[in-house]
């Protein structure tokens, strides 16, 4: 099993969700995060005091899938999250050793 961690622009979340659902996967966990990267931040000014804000709102999506499904998920995510401008985000794939569904106690592929 693998965990696919995806950082995308917040307004892309619905598109990505649909692309993944189209693959027949119905499970993901989403977190609001802030990203620092090549994409420039912006300036904020409060009563004459300037602040450079480097962190940009991003959305992190985590999907645990069987290893063999990783390539198709990567493909689907890339297509749905792409705008082509700096700041589109990253995908990280990491190993998962065990999965348990709390409700049933099922483990492994059955649990997702």
């Amino acid at each position, binding site marked *: 099993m693998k965990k696919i961690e995806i950082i995308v622009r917040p*307004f892309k979340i619905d598109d990505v969700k649909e692309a993944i659902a189209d693959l027949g996967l119905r499970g993901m966990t989403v977190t609001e995060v802030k990203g620092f990267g090549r994409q420039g931040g*912006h*300036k*904020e*000014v*409060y009563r004459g005091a300037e602040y450079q804000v480097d962190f940009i709102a991003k959305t992190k999506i985590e999907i645990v899938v069987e290893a063999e499904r990783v390539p198709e998920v990567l493909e689907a995510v890339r297509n749905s999250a792409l705008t082509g401008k700096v700041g589109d985000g990253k995908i990280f794939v990491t190993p998962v050793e065990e999965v348990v569904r709390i409700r049933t106690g099922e483990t492994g592929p059955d649990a997702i």
Partner: protein
Amino acid sequence: MNAADTSFILICSALVMFMTPGLALFYAGMARSKNVLGTIMQSFVMLGLVSIIWAVIGYTLAFGDDIGGFIGGMNFFALDGVGMDTLNSPADNLPHLLFMVFQGMFAVITPALITGAFAERMKFKSLLIFSSLWIIVVYAPMCHWVWGGGWMGERGALDFAGGAVVHMSSGAAALAACLVIGKRKGYGKQSFIPHNLPMTLLGAGILWFGWFGFNAGSALAANGVAANAFVTTHLAAAAGLLGWLLVEGIHGGKPTTLGAASGAVAGLVAITPAAGFVTPMAAILIGFGGGIICYGGILLKSKFKYDDSLDVVGIHGLGGTWGALATGLFASVGAEGLFYGNPEQLWIQLESVICTWGYCFVVSWILLKVIDATVGLRVTEDEEIIGLDVAEHSEAGYQL
């Protein structure tokens, strides 16, 4: 000068002023989080901009010596001759300055109402230009026509506190604005969910509170008419609230908090032209009708596919229209409507509705087109994505 009336209208002026920050919150709560300050600002800045324009030129255009029924003369330019006593005051029981500032508060909130139509995508600079011009070429004439001795009032149109001057005019301008500026990016695809409804409810509470100054204050005296207008205003708001919740229920859903707030405002809009002319029981009908009609009004935008972001057309345009016509039906206090044997009043009201919509829509549309062609009305796509707060004001609403 009457001290009791002066006392009353001083406080009413403060109440009407308070409506603009109330409106700012009412609107901003419905916007998305990244546009919360931009939306507040579009209303709040009117307190600065329009107040000054009104004192310098707006007031005299509206209440200066009548020129051909269409506009006021320059005799009160820069408040010349507008003093602490009642001299020349259109309300001879009130200090002239007080009458001026009470009217000025109406002028402030009217362009603020329009901003709901183009929320989340209008350039701030263009907003300032548009609003400044609009006050001069749309609001001041409308105000003159109805209350300043102009043709509409002369023909007998009844508008107690601004059904035409404030609500229909802003509704018509709002319709022009949605058409000219176009939809928000992603409209219809992404979710445009209110970011802070408690803020909207607070705004609605402030609006309701301030509206007593608006409507009861329009009696310009602390008397029975004011008391009647106070009661009709309150009951219409109450009935509008219930009316909207009822349709929501019938329409297959749950009664919503936003619906309660919207219905109350719809009832308030509907009673505005009628407040001093109808009985409390008629006010219940008018408000109830307002709640139902404005609910219908907001559905129009999906039908006709324009993006009136915060439903200015649906609520102020339609609510004001219903109120103006309802005044022609139900008037019975100091004037008679159809149901009290005077069908003519309804025709006069209809005429005022048509002329108000026509004039305000056309002139607003022209103004917007000209500004769009020169300065540009709309922020860039990137700015729209990042949000008005950062893009137009270099600020963020929340750091929670």
